[in-house]
């Protein structure tokens, strides 16, 4: 069984999901549950720290895009931070990078959201 772990954090009132492991057909369901849970709580802005994500298949990509779409319809956003090269390649190879705000680290993602809210 693939291993993936999700840690929920609230940093400066912004929900941050710290995801680690492989996001494939099996584990993407857990990610979907976590994201839907936050969206259902009317969270408009979410950050996913992907520093420890080793692999992302299209199942995971689909979950991320579906969540982003929902948030965008509520004038929110899903920010991605600290992507490893191979995971970043998935976004650029498929062209999904044009939909997402991608930051080199979690701090810059948080700063960007704070700057928007000012």
């Amino acid at each position, binding site marked *: 069984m693939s291993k993936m772990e999700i840690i929920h954090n609230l940093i400066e009132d912004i929900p941050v999901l710290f995801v680690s492991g492989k996001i494939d057909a099996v584990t993407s369901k857990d990610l979907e549950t976590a994201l839907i849970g936050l969206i259902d709580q009317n969270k408009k802005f979410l950050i996913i720290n992907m520093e420890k994500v080793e692999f992302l*298949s299209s199942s995971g990509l689909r979950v991320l895009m579906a969540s982003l779409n929902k948030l965008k319809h509520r004038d929110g956003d899903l920010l991605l931070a600290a992507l490893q090269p191979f995971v970043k390649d998935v976004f650029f190879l498929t062209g999904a990078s044009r939909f997402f705000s991608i930051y080199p680290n979690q701090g810059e993602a948080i700063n960007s959201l704070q700057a928007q809210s000012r």
Partner: protein
Amino acid sequence: MPRKPTNLIYGVDDEPPLTTTLLLGFQHIFILSIAFIFPVVIVTEIGGSPEDAQNLICMAMLATGLSTALQAFNKGPVGSGYLCPLVNGPAFVPASLLAGKAGGLALIFGMTIVAGIFEALFSQVVGRMRKFFPPEVTGTVVLMVGVEVIPIAVPKFFGVDGAHPGVAALPFLVALITLAVTAGFNVWGKGKMRLYSLLIGMVAGYAVSFATGILTIDKARLIIDSAFFQLPEIGKFGMSFSAVMLVPFLVAAFSSALKTMGDLTTCQKINDADWRRIEMRSIGRGMLACAAGNITSGLLGALGQSVSSSNIGLSIATGATSRRIGYAAGGILMLLAFFPKLAAIFVIMPTPVMGASLVFAVCFMIMAGIQIIMSRMIDSRKTFVVGLSIIFGLSFDIVPGLYAGVDPMLQPLLSSSLALATICAVVLNVFFRMGISQKMEFEIDPAVDTSDRIFQIMEKQGGTWGARREVIFNAIAAMNELLDASPFLGLLEKKIALSVQFDEFNLDVRAVYEGMPFDIPTAMPCIDSMHDAEASALALSAFTMSRYVDRMSFSTKDGKTELLMHFEH
């Protein structure tokens, strides 16, 4: 045409301005001139006169100048096309000593021609020997090319010699200042400052040497006392041959050829941002240039020559690899043979300055070797090839005299850490290749298996094959997309048979499953459809899969679909 790496200021095909080219050529000659010590060593050992040594240095300038320029040619049958200067190198010192003691300088020169002819023949077959030189072998050779210079560089850096067995404070200080200035300009200098970092460091080293008395007025007088212009005496000592000397010289030529391979591999890598594997054609042409250099050496009356690893280190450090610099360095060297006054500037180079320059260049050679080794996936077979070769190679320097009892004919094979490590790497690579199948088959069960199983199998096999990491990752990702798509293809109750075939240029995956082919979208599915897995998951999987492969196709037979995925390696 290869893509120029961003860290290069002047790539191999670039044309720097004339003044810059000449200055960079001079900078290379400073490093090359360190090897002028070898003719002096040989002549002293066989009881020759200082005039004989001077003649040998003069001929070395002519012969290596010609071959350095020849090596840079990228048109015609001779020359690798790279800036890869040649020196009267250490590879030929043991064989030359044997010949010199048996038959004087004439025998050295005659046998050097024989070595050159052997190298020329070897250059014609080396192209068919690629499988003997995978990246873990060539990387180890490049690494050891740098390591081999350490026993020469470090004593000079610390001022240690026969008369001073301990660290000498003043020479050490001069070496430290030279290295600090060179490294400082290399790391923090911009543009020209980085280009000339070694030249600046050496000028500082000469100045400090003069100020501290290491470079004495007496030594400096050599410049004044030398003639401004003098015609070199070509072929003064004649030549002779001996069958007894055949083995040591052929072994020296073979070691030199392998060193050429390692050095030219580094040249290929540093000049191509997308470097993947050794390109044998330019290696063969480069070896032929070395062979021509050795035949010229023998005819003129100089020692055997091989490529200078330290100069490649300098090219990496300064970011200047233009072949024009090779023409310049070669041309200047040949001219210096006619102008002894100018040549004397290099001859009087203070020992600590030599040490610091070599230490500086070695750093870059070692890193180049490590990068080549790590460009492929490493398993336990490759760990042994690399590890054992380095261990036994280093044993030559760490345990002096360990191989002293070996038959003199075989001594050249064991004459340096580089020769030992190279032979170990080539032999161990052949040995550990036994039992490696180029094809592998396995099954995945979409109801049970996850990405982990594909990762485990493919990473292990990728290591066994020594495949490029990124190609194996693309294959893993594409196979995973098939796994992701399987519920939407009705494969949850069925198995997918996979077979993977590898050679140095191709990785082919064949997947067979009971069911129909699927459409490959040419664009990403709409983001608005992503919330509905049934509507978007198969299309997104297929589209993502198509982005990882270089080519894919379907065929169907008896209700089974065969999906072929091709990856360039």
